[in-house]
């Protein structure tokens, strides 16, 4: 185990803040692995679900589509994921945990506050924001993934280096919604 002390994307520890019914948290302990498979691969040999365009298979290991024959895996057990991918010898994996920052957004008041927030952030129609959907889009001029995990939970991923800018946008929009609700 290295004696170098890791940093969270925005400082020594992951950020967390609540704005009315919404809570924003920098996710920690989540391993991101990009997966690419050659043309003509046999998906049936692996237990890892490989959703189609816009799809997001949510489970202990979650997978979302990022491009033709490409996916991003979210896992908290990299060894298990590696074992699951073993039947795919041509799979190209790249650990991306440090390439991205993931902010988890949860609502204590149902889906409405989440949808109010996302309306202020990304130009996506409702069907692309339904639970089980993942979309690569632009947010504050940043490339990002918007993942809808459930009615009351979503995550936004962007480049780790732009974590500060994304946090500014997310927290600012959430704060404005909370302040409006309060008036």
């Amino acid at each position, binding site marked *: *185990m*290295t*004696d*170098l*002390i*890791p*940093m*969270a994307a925005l*400082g020594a520890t992951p950020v967390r803040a609540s704005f009315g019914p919404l809570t924003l948290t920098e996710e920690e302990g989540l391993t991101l692995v*990009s997966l*690419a498979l*050659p*043309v003509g691969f046999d998906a049936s040999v692996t237990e890892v679900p490989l959703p189609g365009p816009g799809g997001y298979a949510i489970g202990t290991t979650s997978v979302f589509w990022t491009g*033709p024959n*490409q996916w991003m895996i979210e896992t908290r057990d990299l060894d298990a994921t590696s074992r699951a991918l073993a039947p795919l010898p041509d799979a*190209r994996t*790249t*650990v*991306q*945990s*440090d*390439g*991205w920052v993931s902010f988890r957004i949860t609502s204590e008041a149902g889906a409405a506050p989440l949808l109010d927030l996302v*309306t*202020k*952030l*990304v*130009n*996506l*129609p*409702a069907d692309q924001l339904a639970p089980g959907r993942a979309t690569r889009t632009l947010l*504050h*001029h*940043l490339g990002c993934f918007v993942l809808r995990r459930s009615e009351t939970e979503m995550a936004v991923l962007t*480049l*780790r*280096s*732009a*974590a*500060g*800018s*994304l946090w*500014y*946008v997310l927290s*600012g*929009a959430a704060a*404005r919604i909370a*302040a*409006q609700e*309060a*008036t």
Partner: protein
Amino acid sequence: MTQTRLPGGLIDRNQPLSFTFNGRKLQGYQGDTLASALMANDIRLVARSFKYHRPRGIFSAGSEEPNALLTLGEGADADPNTRATVVPLREGLVARSQNHAGPLGWDLWSVNDLAAPFFAAGFYYKTFMWPRAFWEKLYEPAIRRAAGLGALSQLPDPETYDKGFLHCDLLVIGGGAAGLSAALTAGRAGANVILADEDLRLGGRLLAESDPLDDAPAADWVARAEAELRALPNVRVMPRTTVFGVYDHGVYGAVEQVSDLPGAALRQTLWRITAKRAVMATGATERHIPFRDNDRPGILLAGAMRAYANRWAVAPARGKVAIFTNNDDGHRTALDLQAKGVDLLGVIDSRTGARPFGDYPIFAGGRVTGTSGRRGLRAIRLAWNGREEELACAALGVSGGWNPNIQLASHHRGRPQWDAARLAFLAQGGPEGLIPAGAAAGEGSTHHALTSGHHAAADALRQLGLTTPAPALPRAEDRQGGAEAFWHVPGKGRAWVDFQNDVTVKDIKLAHQENMRSVEHLKRWTTLGMATDQGKTSNVTALAVMAELTGRSIPETGTTIFRPPYTPVSLSVLGGGDTGAHFRPTRLTPTHAWAKAQGALFVEAGQWMRAQYFPRPGETHWRQSVDREVLAVRAGVGLCDVTTLGKIDVQGADAGEFLNRIYANMMGTLAVGKVRYGLMLREDGFAYDDGTCARLGESHYVVTTTTSNAGLVLRTMEFARQCLWPDLDVTLISTTDAWAQIAVAGPNARRLLSRVVDGFDLSNETFPFMACAELTVAKGCPARLFRISFSGELAYEIAVPARYGQALMDRLMREGADLGVTPYGTEALSVLRIEKGHAAGAELNGQTTALMLGLGRMVSQKKDSIGAVMSRREGLAQDTRRLVGLQAVDPARPLPAGSHLFREGAARDTATDQGWITSACYSPHVGGHIALGFLEEGDTRLGEIVIAANPLQGTEAACRVVPAQFVDPEGGRLRD
């Protein structure tokens, strides 16, 4: 309150509100607008006109208002040019008039009105041409002071703005009869509907009329319709939301006024609404009829007068009120005013056969030929039955017919079409999927508005595959307008067409005389139709007047189209609330916080913020810091965060072949564990990026790009992968952010690194120049190590997962204290690479070739690659300019980048131009100023003195042509 307040209306008399106008404390009611409240306080003079400083009053009851532009708020919150007609009254509202010197009633600039004969249209264009130098310093400031609207506070806007995105099946623009009917139709059918209206309340003209719907007040039906719409989960009702423009792909721009209160949580939101279809139920704007002195306070649009009476329960003035009309609608105003107890002088109807609709005097075939009253209307001059007489009159309502509000339909270059029967321009063409309805479609009666709204929505939904149930619409009036063309009252004196820009009938005549025959020329020459109202009350009238003057029809005269925005939109809301440091996103390196703590100054490199240099106590000039950092690298060891360089993982069985085609030089032959310098060309054969390529495994490479081209290179490679060679088995993943990469450069680099790697042999034999490896550092941290050098010194770049970047930097600094370790920034990085003669962005500027860079042999003849063939074409292959080093003859004399190179004694012009300087710096290693540049046949001119000239600043410096490598030209240091 005064006698101008009438009974009834949609105001809440139980909620009085205090406000001030020009410091005077006044009172209105909840439900009032600022305009109606001013009117209720019998304040008629509210503004001064743009050019002549004529007294002006409230003219309309909506967003078309040309006159009543006021400044709201104070200090940084001051909001100029706000139309009093669209501002809901609120407690404590502070309003003041603008564009006057001295009190509003005694404006010193009104002297302009006396000089009006000299200020005709085109006056400025003709008068202030000479002397030219006077324009900026004298003429323009003076004119701006005398003529204009409100003034900005010059302070940052303290309010909060937001932005957002909405999607819907049907966007209904306008919440009047047609809009409500359309929204109800679509909402009941289950479509996803957005209903937007610029007003605080839904209802549009229904709130301004006295006609019932289903025998009950129209406001009751509006309330029921709104309640139903708000209860539908598929309908979003957005009052105070102005749809201001139609853009490509069904995107509509809208501004929602969330709050008017200073310091509110949110003031406005900019919405981008993507709508599959839209109904343009934007209503109509009444026209006036120009006649002599028709701009006095107290002269209003007749429909507005009716709206003030019915909705806001206020009469336009104390005293008699007259109506001047060319259509039946003017009579509605007369009837409604009469019903409210207003003293009616009568209706002057330009139609000779006109008859009254009630018990009031009518002057059929009459004309208003003039008015009097210094700060407000006192009397009108009536020409009727062959005689003229002056009649005492406190207010005059003018109705010249109605113009459908078709502005949005023009936003995709849709050209309105003249409808001779309706005497109006109707929408034609324009944005796909935008369907006009109601008054906006020329359907003037309430009955027609309701049915056309329904039909428009049904039509839109049918196109989307949805069926609509039969409507249950209320019974409504179905009067026709009966307008007869009557565009202005001919005669002497000034008859205003455009109140906001002080354009008169005479000005239009003059424009025509000056050969401004095109309507577009007329607009620009007279300024008609400009500024905040965009000619809503004047454009069509001006066109008709011009047609009449020229003896042509209106279609022959032309038409005009409208651009966004429909009504003024603040820059603040267009910015969406992102200002200052957050105006655009920034990317921070993993060691940013550490560098900041070291006192680093930062510089933007694309979106990245990079440490520029690290000043130390006692250093008073950036050069001191940079020189120290450069010398520290050359003498000991330096550390620089180079995370920003693009990193692209290339994997797959065909990765080598793919890279052979991407790079100009051979890459597929690179051995595992080795790094090679690579050059990329564009399709046209010019060089566009360079960097290194490391082979980590049989089918695994890492491509490194320059910081600025990281995105471009990945995009180009993805295009090649997906579109040019989809048959190749290769995968690309950007890992720029995943790895924190630190350059460790200097003669002590190996000693320092050996203190952090976990049992890895760094000896020259095992890990020579251009080697790479995956290893661990600091007891198990995964890392990648590349032995590459940008500085010309023994150097490495070490990468660890980004989360450990700061810790690694800290560790290296601690471990290297005895080795003279020094952090260095981009300035020193640049000096080091110029001293070494390495090309960078300034040399790879898209206009240089491999040959020019001295890298011609890198373009492999053994294989094809992007740009290889084109690089050999005539014109590129024959380019004789070459990258050279330049050393100032006088070491203290800078060689500015961008300077052009000339032979000694030659003229300084393009014919004698020999090249240019790309990069320059002071070299602490050389002890003088040096540069890199491209010089004609530079490789054969070593030792020659050339002149670096900067004609823009008039500076010159002599410099000697030398090899580009100022440091260790043999390359011994980096291979040691």
